């Protein structure tokens, strides 16, 4: 029974991970423009903050939610409240990963070459975020109801 259930899950249950390449085209050009603008403006603003108030304050804003306001609003517009809530929940796992990202950079910045520090930190971000996401999925997943054998006629 367990093997069957695993097979069912991997074959495309509700929570199976999927790539939907057509979604890129579904997103309108202006929505990408909005994200570009948000990301660009926040990054430039962090530069100004860094000039004016130094690295400690700039560091805070390096973790400013640049895209989240736009994506949550757009998801809510496209797919409704429940999807926007799921989007926010996912972002909270990403945020925990971001804490680890920052700690890795802090610990290694003065020891490793720059590219390796940033690459390694990015990998740990993804690993932590994915692990939390998978864990939450497992905890929230109610075990499937026992299947009764079909009555024989």
């Amino acid at each position, binding site marked *: 029974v367990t093997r069957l259930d695993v097979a069912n899950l991997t074959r495309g249950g509700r*929570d199976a*991970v*999927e790539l*939907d390449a057509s*979604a890129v085209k*579904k*997103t309108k050009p202006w929505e*990408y423009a909005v*994200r*570009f603008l948000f*990301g*660009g*403006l*926040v*990054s*430039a603003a*962090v530069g100004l903050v*860094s*000039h004016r108030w130094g*690295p*400690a*304050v700039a*560091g*805070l804003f*390096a*973790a400013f*939610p*640049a*895209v*989240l*306001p736009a*994506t949550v*609003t757009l998801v*809510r517009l496209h797919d409704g409240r429940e999807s926007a*809530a*799921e*989007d*926010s*929940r*996912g*972002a*909270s*796992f*990403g*945020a925990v990963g*971001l*804490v680890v*990202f*920052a*700690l890795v*950079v*802090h610990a290694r910045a003065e020891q490793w070459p*720059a590219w390796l*520090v940033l690459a390694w930190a*990015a990998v740990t*971000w993804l690993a932590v*975020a*994915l692990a939390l*996401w998978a864990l*939450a999925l497992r905890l929230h997943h109610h075990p499937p109801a026992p299947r009764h054998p079909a009555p024989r006629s």
Partner: protein
Amino acid sequence: MWSELVVRFIAGGLVVMAFSAVAEVLRPKSLAGLFGAAPSVALVTLSLGFLHHGPTFVAKEASTMALGAVAMLAYAMASLWLVRTERVPAWLGTLGSLAAWFLTAFGLKGAS
């Protein structure tokens, strides 16, 4: 300084757009949500920090970035709660979540 700002603007825009394109194609949506808190602005900021100011500067930035990231967690949780609350319009949800970020970030920085 202006040229640096232009570089930041373009690099930040591109990285954010790249991360959201990845988020767009991923299903289910909660997995896509991870990328809403991707280190996009962080990668641009820290790369330029290494380039212009060196590793000691970046280590300092990263130590407060950890506090900013905790604030990002507060943002996401506030957003989750507000989006589910009936009668809260989208703009108010965003505003409330941003308030959560600022309060947490500067609260933690003040306390540390």
